[in-house]
């Protein structure tokens, strides 16, 4: 009897499911409306519906992308959190970085910092001090600490963050503080900065630790509850995972402990799927382009590996944990267009959201959105399902575009709609340039992978504008993020800072730090059920030229560490610096700031089914013809049903491919092929390739 792997991605509107039948490799997908009050309700509906099918025997593997932590942070609905800091340093948290974000915030009279998740009234000071070498200057005053904790007793603190100076060098004080908290405030959950992120720079470490403390009980309760409900229906597999920001998964328990590492759980699935999928199909350099209703996420994957970052801001708060480098732009199907008092056409950043939504949804929206413009142009049909909503109202869309854009500007409705789409495309193209050309990558070497409900409508046009190598639309673009959950390995990141001159370090010095991290990685993965031979360990050093204010992570080999081969590390750093920043300084001295270890528990790879042609001619896939606006003219365009397109068929645009969860638009002249995995491979139109080669030779 067949076993299934189940992946569930909770989104704002829909909860997406992908079921993989282990014996045949067949995929099926499902969508349920999300249940924000308790996301597990929608999840259980989907799981129940699978288990209700007679052939489903059981679930061997369960993976979940969740926004529970993210939403609790964005809505400031975490638990009552306290904070302990070194004596004299209660300003660290509130001062933050002191600076405001670049751009409009500098002109914003109303600028304010994000609210303190652990307010000053629930902040206590700990008499102790460690210096920059990790030596104790002032020993921990346990009695004073007990008094402080008793003073906090009335505050009903559920979770407490502890961040002492230089604890990444000397964690003993924080560890002892945890023991004393257990005695004085029993039941209070504790997050230590030396556990969460033993890394130099106190504000980033503190902020990450406070966020962890703030979310940990929430995530623990949610995942505990979900686990119970899964067991109730017979899903008892130990392989039950949650997606983390780093593109790897973790078991429910580990994920709850490191709640702050799940904040990008949602978008990480799409990027991971993009990376795996393209590697499987022999495309190694891609840009993932995930466009939904209010925003789009773009990420760069080079050589099959997504770019990583060592943290960033989430709702203005620093989270310094490793994650996939994903850039988000406020441009989606619901992005609003209009004309301002000076007669300037404006697209975004405001969005109609899901309520009232685009005018064509007929839910009370009257202002034109990108989706309305797409409908007016013929890119979407009134029957487009957009993930299950009702038929779209083309007249309402045209009326909105006419009243709010075309008439005020004295334009034709079609021209106005085309203008709206062109402008939103350019905004997204500039975001893609921001993560590629502006960082020294050449887009001619990259394929644009479009997914999400709105992505495939825009992908072909953007690929052409950006002079990219081509575009790829996966078989199930609407649930790609869920598919990615199934394809990820379990992954944990470990870091420890110690600042030294590189050339003064020996092999034993470096091993003394990384081996502690390796031991932690192996212990965690072993608890999660991975035998030693299913574990991979990677080593990274964060290095910089002396005096620089930031570090560059550089991968190093175990062998180089053992031999203390600093010369090779030095060369690798210079090369990485040159690559990233356009220059290197081989004469300057180099410092090691942090040591990183990544432990990966390898899960059996998902092999997507390769299909054979069934011999269905293209003509049988064509379900309709309709007029569609491309460039300056309206062209009668064939409409194909995605599920009827046979493997191996080729055609040339213009074309529209309709499928259950999205619509693919192909520009005139663009060749398309359906590959063995049922991906649509779209190539640039030949004339533009010529102009591209001219540009290349210029």
């Amino acid at each position, binding site marked *: 009897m067949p076993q299934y792997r189940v992946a569930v991605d909770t989104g704002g509107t829909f909860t997406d499911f992908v079921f993989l039948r282990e014996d045949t490799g067949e995929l099926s997908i499902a969508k349920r409306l999300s249940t924000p009050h308790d996301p597990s309700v929608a999840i259980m509906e989907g799981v129940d519906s699978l288990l209700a099918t007679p052939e489903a025997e059981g679930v061997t593997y369960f993976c979940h992308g969740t926004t529970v932590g993210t939403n609790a942070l964005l809505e400031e609905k975490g638990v009552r959190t306290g904070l302990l800091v070194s004596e004299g340093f209660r300003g660290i948290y509130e*001062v933050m970085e002191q600076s405001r974000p670049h*751009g409009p915030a500098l*002109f914003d*009279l109303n600028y304010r910092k994000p609210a303190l998740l652990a307010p000053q009234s629930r902040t206590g000071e700990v008499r102790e001090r460690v210096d920059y070498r990790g030596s104790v200057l002032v020993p921990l005053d346990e009695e004073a600490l007990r008094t402080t904790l008793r003073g906090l007793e009335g505050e009903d603190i559920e979770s407490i963050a502890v961040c002492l100076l230089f604890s990444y060098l000397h964690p003993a004080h924080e560890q002892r503080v945890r023991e004393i908290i257990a005695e004085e405030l029993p039941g209070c959950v504790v997050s230590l900065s030396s556990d969460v992120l033993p890394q130099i720079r106190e504000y980033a470490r503190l902020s990450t630790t406070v966020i962890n403390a703030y979310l940990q009980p929430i995530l623990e309760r949610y995942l505990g509850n979900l686990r119970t409900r899964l067991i109730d229906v017979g899903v008892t597999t130990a392989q039950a995972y949650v997606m983390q920001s780093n593109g790897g998964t973790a078991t429910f328990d580990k994920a709850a402990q490191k709640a702050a590492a799940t904040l990008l759980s949602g978008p990480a699935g799409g990027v991971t799927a993009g990376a795996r999928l393209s590697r499987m199909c022999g495309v190694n350099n891609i840009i993932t382009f995930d466009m939904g209703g209010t925003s789009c996420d773009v990420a760069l994957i080079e050589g099959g590996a997504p770019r990583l970052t060592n943290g960033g801001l989430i709702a203005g708060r620093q989270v310094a944990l490793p994650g996939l480098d994903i850039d988000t732009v406020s441009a989606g199907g619901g992005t609003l267009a209009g004309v301002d008092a000076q007669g300037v056409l404006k697209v975004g950043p405001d969005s109609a959201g899901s309520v009232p939504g685009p005018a064509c949804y007929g839910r009370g929206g009257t202002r034109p959105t990108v989706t309305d413009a797409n409908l007016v142009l013929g890119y979407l049909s009134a029957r487009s399902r957009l993930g299950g909503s009702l038929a779209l109202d083309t007249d309402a869309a045209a009326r909105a575009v006419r009243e709010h854009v075309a008439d005020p500007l004295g334009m034709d409705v079609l021209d106005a709609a*085309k203008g709206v789409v062109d402008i939103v495309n350019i905004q997204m193209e*500039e975001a893609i340039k921001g993560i590629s050309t502006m960082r020294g990558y050449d887009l001619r070497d990259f394929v644009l992978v479009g997914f999400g409900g709105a992505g495939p409508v825009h992908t072909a046009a953007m690929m052409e504008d950006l002079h990219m190598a081509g575009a790829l639309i996966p078989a199930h673009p609407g649930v790609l993020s869920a598919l990615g959950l199934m394809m990820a390995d379990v992954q944990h990141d470990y870091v420890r800072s110690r600042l030294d001159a590189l050339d003064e370090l020996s092999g034993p010095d470096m091993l003394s730090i990384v081996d502690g991290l390796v031991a932690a990685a192996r212990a965690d993965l072993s608890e999660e059920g991975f035998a030693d031979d299913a574990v991979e360990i990677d080593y990274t050093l964060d290095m910089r030229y002396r005096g620089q*204010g930031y570090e560059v992570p550089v991968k190093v080999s175990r062998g180089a560490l053992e031999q203390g081969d600093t010369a090779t590390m030095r060369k690798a750093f210079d090369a990485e610096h040159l690559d990233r*920043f356009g220059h290197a300084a081989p004469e300057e001295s180099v410092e090691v700031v942090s040591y990183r270890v990544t432990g990966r528990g390898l899960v059996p790879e998902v092999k997507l089914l390769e299909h054979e042609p069934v011999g269905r001619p293209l003509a049988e896939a064509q379900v309709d013809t309709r007029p569609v606006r491309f460039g300056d003219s309206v062209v009668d365009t064939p409409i194909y049903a995605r599920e009827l397109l046979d493997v191996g068929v080729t055609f040339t645009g213009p074309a529209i491919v309709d499928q259950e969860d999205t619509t693919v638009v192909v520009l005139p002249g663009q060749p398309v092929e359906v590959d063995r995995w049922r991906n649509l491979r779209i190539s640039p139109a030949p004339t533009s390739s010529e102009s591209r080669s001219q540009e290349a030779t210029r």
Partner: protein
Amino acid sequence: MNRPMKVAPVTFQVLRARLSGVVQEMQFSLFRTGFSTIIRESQDASCAFLDPTGRVVAQHVVLPLHIGAFPACTAAVLRDFGDDLCEGDAYLINHTYEGGSPHAPDFFVICPVFIDGELLGFAASMAHKGDIGGPVPGSCSASATEIYNEGLHMPAVRYQRDGETNRDIERIIAANSRTPEVVLGDTRGQLGSVRVGERRLQEIAEKHGLDELRNYFEDVLAVSEQRVRAALAEWPDMEVEAERFVDDDGIDLEHSFRLHVTVRKAGDRIEFDFTQSDDQTRGPANIRPPLLRAACAYVVISLLGPDTYVNSGLLDAMDITTRPGSVVDPHFPAAVNTYNPTVHAVVDAVFDAMSAIVPGRGRADGCASRSFVMSGGREPGTKKYVQYEIFGGGTGALKDRDGVSGSSVNHTNGKIAPVEIVESEYTARVKRLELIPDSGGAGRFRGGLGILREYEVVEPARFSLRSTRHKVAPLGVDGGHRGRIGRLTVNPGTPQERVLPSRYSDLPLKPGDTFRLETPGGGGYGNPLERDADAVVADVASGYVSEAAAREDYGVVVTRDAKGTVVLDRQATGKLRHERALDAPASDVGVPALAQEVIAE
């Protein structure tokens, strides 16, 4: 009222997005290729496009003041080389009087962009340099009395012709800097960035044509100006005055000096008249009109909101009047290196005046900005270092919200250095980092709190301070109290205790010495007796306001419950507030901000 656009509406937005993308790419390139931490950490560097007449048509806003300097420096290039500009040229200028560089460490690299032999405009970048000579490292001496004490000055010079660098210029720069490789590395990074801009602009011109781009430039400047004028037209006509004072100029420590503005708003025009500002200072506190213009633009953009296009068009909607020989229009060669205290005073004065014109948008004064430099390693066998830190403090309260604590304010935006980095890289030890209770001016809405940071010196070092608001407090609004002034105390609480003036150069410190920097809090807004009593209780619980100040300033009495939690004594508070209201009805309301009022005790 609105001039018809020359380019189609869609094209307009397409070109706007493309050009802003290109300026951002230039900016990335500069951050990527520059070497110094000043460029990458303080990000004291900007990029822009200018039209053939030298007006900014696109800028990436990193620091708002640069919008004034780009046109002034480009004007110098046009004046000196206008009849001989060629494709492949690049120009370099850092001269405050020949061009409009805020001070000599700010280098501008400007490259004319040609399409088919016709000048389309300029790609330009500016970046602060770590050191370009002069008596002190960093080239910003607090005792400079003329620009000859402020490092190497270059008028507009041709840095490249046909893409070939004039090496003699680089050799002169190298010979004048304490850190020649870094300065040249950064300057070449700027060059690389303007060349990226040039190439991208040419690509856009190829697609859209020279005429369409030129028309776009005219349109975008016009739209920007029209937006300002449309907003101005809605505001009431009036003439308003305001003034602010700066502690001193660093040379004459006895006297504060005055920035005064008369704002005349009529129809869709606005004039900022600074003729009644004080005479130019002997010390390096002067600013030139390009910076003054940018300071006014900063305020106007803040009042208009985020839809404003930041380009020269908005400057066209404003008239600025100055008196030659004054602190905002000094005669050559008056010293200018420490311009920020003066610019903050201008910004605060202009905001004050504008608050009468734009109802509801008033704000109390904030902390301004300050920096110190500590250098060591002069003794044999010790590590050489220069420790440069930038500090904000409390921002002023608004009509409907408290000020922000421990923040940058106005046009400045430095990051605070992490304690763990400071101790690992330098020899000082940080003893405290706290917000200062009661430093935020009391009010219906409270000013933000200043920062206290205390250091212990571990090895011999030399210390310089460039600060402000150590004598002149940030003002409150509408009955709100002043924010607390800043202070720098050496060896506090010891017999050797000593308070430094706000500008000070080269104080020797020995191991064991401590110094404590306290930065100002923001001013309050509205009568503190009207502050929500529960908000005062929360402030006491958080340590932002002491129990004594709660009683004294706010008329709020707090007590503690059985668990030790701070709670409101409602009855005592009601009684006290009633008595206070009778004693001193809204004490400061309507009192103008005059000199004798602002000099703190």
